[in-house]
Each structure stands twice: as C-alpha cells, then as structure tokens.
C-alpha cells in the first residue's frame, strides 16, 4: 500500500522535518506518494530536500504538484520540476518554463557533481549578485566576492564528501520571522553524510561518543576533516568567518542531527539530535539584509 506523505503548506527547513517524520516508518523500497497539493510556499532548501528525498528511495516515489498556480510556477522557474521528473512520478501538470532570461530566481536549482560545476555556479552568481545584494539586501556590493566564495565552499562539500551528486540553489525572499529580506543558499545531497565521511579518521578517537551530532560538531565547530592534510577543513572555516561578519545563520543537517550556528538575531537551538534519519548532508546559509 502506498503511503501518502503530506507536504506542509509552508515548507522550509523546520517544517521539512515533518515530511521526514512521516517518511521514517517506511523503508526505502516502500511505495510513497509525496503530496504537495496544498503547499503554497517553499524555500530553496526545502525544494532541494524534496529532490534528495526521492534520491534516497529505491522505489520511485510519486509526487503531487501544488494546486496553487503561483507556487507551481515558481517551482518551475526554480528548476524543481526539471529534476523532479527524473526522480519522481509526477501527478499533475508542471507549468511550462518561460523563455530564458526572464527568471526572478537568483540561482535556479543546479546540479553539482564536478569541480567545473562549481566554476559555472560561481561565475553565474557573480553576474547577478551585485544588483541584488545592493538593491534588495542593502549590503555592501564588495560583499559579492565573499558571497561567491561562501557559495563555492558550500558546493565543494558535495564534491569532496558526498560520494554522490547534489544540488545548489540561491534565492532571496522576505522572511517574516525576521521582517527583512534574506538571501538563502541551499546545498543538499543524499550522499554518505558527515558521520560516514569522517568516521575512518575520527570515529575511533571519539569511541562511544561518535554519532551524527558529534560528527557535525567535529566538522563545523572544530574544523576537522577526513583528510590528514592540515590545510583541509577550510571550507566551513571560511563560511563561518564570513557569516560572522554578516551575522548570517548556518544550518547543517546530516543523518539524525542538525547543527546551527545561531546569529544574535535568532533563538534557534545549536544542536538537535534524534531527528528522523535523512541521508547525506543538507547545508543552509541565511544572510539577512540590512534593516531599511
């Protein structure tokens, strides 16, 4: 019997947990139908996570497209259906894409599997970033380089550690919780995750304490790497450096844990453990714009 997984009306990094909670009782080869009919809003992180969800199933899941035309249209512009149709059996009609060049999406969902993919993403984002950072977020346009570097390092996490391709997407929107425009960088994969990636080098040292939460703390907080080279582990160190300057927020979810670097404007929990299992690593960077 096919299990129906109901997608919340507003889908973001927090509410996506309810999708995983519903999915948890059903093994990867069990048939599931992901029902997004009533969804009216989604962040890039959540769209990428929906792709990862399908990638993590051995039985091809079904997917019901949102009823709301505006939502479905945005998902199409964000590139969601282009990849979803490869991974899901779609129910409903995905809106046709408008001609190239008209998109309001910063960086549509873009697959990352090779170093060249990161080069292309970095070049593309720089073309658009100047006007958006200045006009929408009111940040210093000199931040473009730092923004692109952060994006580059986040994407490299897939190449270096996932063992499987993933996706990146960037978008700005008004985050009601903060009452400001924010830009969101989402980089997600359904690969081996932090725990398996770091285990050969660090699990023995930490013994019984080795778990998803510990692996995230080692990688993000202490900057350890699976490589012995002392230069490795630069990626998250660099991301943290710039998020400190921006008062940005970093969330990394892997396995059953989620680690958050909490900026002063937020009251999130630094480490959540015991979440429903989800393979790979999902990275979310939120950069707030300046107050008007």
């Amino acid at each position, binding site marked *: 019997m096919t299990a129906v997984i109901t997608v919340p009306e507003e889908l973001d990094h927090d509410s996506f947990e309810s999708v995983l909670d519903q999915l948890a009782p059903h093994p990867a080869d069990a048939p599931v139908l992901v029902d997004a009919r009533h969804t009216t809003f989604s962040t890039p992180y959540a769209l990428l996570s929906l792709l990862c969800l399908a990638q993590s199933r051995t039985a091809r899941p079904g997917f019901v497209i949102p009823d709301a035309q505006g939502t479905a249209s945005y998902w199409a512009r964000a590139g969601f259906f282009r990849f979803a149709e490869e991974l899901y059996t779609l129910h409903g009609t995905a809106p046709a894409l408008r001609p190239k060049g008209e998109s309001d999406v910063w960086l549509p969902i873009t697959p990352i599997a090779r170093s*060249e993919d990161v*080069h292309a993403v970095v070049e593309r984002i720089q073309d658009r970033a100047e006007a958006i950072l200045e006009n929408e977020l009111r940040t210093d346009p000199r931040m473009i380089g730092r923004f692109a570097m952060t994006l580059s*390092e986040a994407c490299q996490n897939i190449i*270096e550690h996932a063992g499987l391709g993933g996706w990146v997407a960037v978008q700005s929107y008004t985050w009601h919780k903060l009452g400001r425009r924010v830009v969101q960088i989402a980089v997600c994969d359904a690969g081996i995750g932090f725990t398996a990636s770091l285990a050969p080098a660090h699990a023995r040292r930490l013994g019984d304490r080795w778990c998803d939460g510990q692996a995230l703390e080692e990688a993000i907080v202490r900057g350890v790497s699976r490589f012995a080279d002392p230069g490795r582990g630069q990626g998250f160190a660099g991301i943290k*450096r710039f998020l400190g300057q921006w008062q940005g927020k970093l969330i990394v979810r892997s396995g059953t844990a989620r680690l958050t670097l909490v900026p002063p404007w937020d009251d999130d929990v630094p480490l959540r453990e015991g979440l429903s299992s989800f393979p790979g690593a999902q990275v979310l960077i939120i950069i707030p714009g300046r107050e008007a």
Partner: protein
Amino acid sequence: MTAMVHIDVAAILQTSVNGVYTDLVTRATGRAVRTRIEHDIADGRPGAVAVIDFSNVGLLDFSCADEIVATLMRQCCADTVALERYVLFAGIKDAHLDAIEHVLERHKLALVVRITAGGTYRLMGMVDEVERLVWEAVARAQAADVAGIAAETGLTGDEVSTCLATLHRRRLIMREGAIFRAPTGAVA
C-alpha cells in the same frame, strides 16, 4: 641580480579548466594550477625567486588559496639549504585578500607581496613586530648584514641574528653568506 621566474596564474588557470573561467575556485582546480606552478618553479634556477602573479585572476576561494598559496609556502619552508626556493606574490587584489589571510593564519605562514600600485613590497601573514621590523629594514637596504640591520633597527646583534635566521627559514629573506636580502628581485 636575483634571477626571477614570472608565473602568470590566470594563464595557467585558462589551460587547466577548459580555458573559460577566471576565478580560482575549488580544491581540484587549485591542485591542478599549483602542480603547474611547481613545474615552472622547478624549471628555474635554485635560489631564483618565482613571481606568482595573480593580476588577471578574479575570485580566489579558501580551498584554492590553501592549495596554491599555503602549499607553495609550506613547500618552500621545508626546502633544504641545498634547494632553496623563494616565491613573491604579485597582483594580489582585495578580492584575494580574505582567502589568503585566512590560510596564512591557519598555517601560521607569511609571504612577501609586491604591491602593484606603488611597486613596493610588504609582508603579509603571521609575523611578529620584531620580524616585521627586521624584514622591512632588509627590504629597504636591499642587501645588508647583521651589523647593518642592528644599526638600522636599534636591536642587538643577537636579536637580529635570531630574527634573520627565522625569516630565512620561513623563506621571507634570502641569505648569501653574511648578506641578507628580501626576495624582491632587487639589484644586488
């Protein structure tokens, strides 16, 4: 005159990544570019200064800075006396500074930079005040011995000797017998 080898990083990048991109991003790209730079340095004379020129490079991310800048400096610092190599970084722009400063800090390294605008040189990275004072005195003098630097800086001969040994080990100054000079390609 000190022998110089000019290495155009952007040109190497163009031949390493499909000839399309000007940004130095990803560790794989950094490794490919650094390997080519190593070959170019190896082709030069021992004791020559390799000028690593970033003039036409767009963005530089942390991973590339680590692979290229930090690894090259670490290799130079590990060189034996018989195989001394020096690198001078040129064409460094604001867009490169964050990543370079970050990796230098992480590895506790320093390097010599040529400032394009004024044609001057400076140390960048992890050096203490005395090391900077002595290095700047050497760079100003172009070639100097311990006594000359001591007179210039007001430090004792022992302090200067110790500091010069450290700077030489870190490949921030060159040594020819009792004479020290900055790896700036200045006329001897």
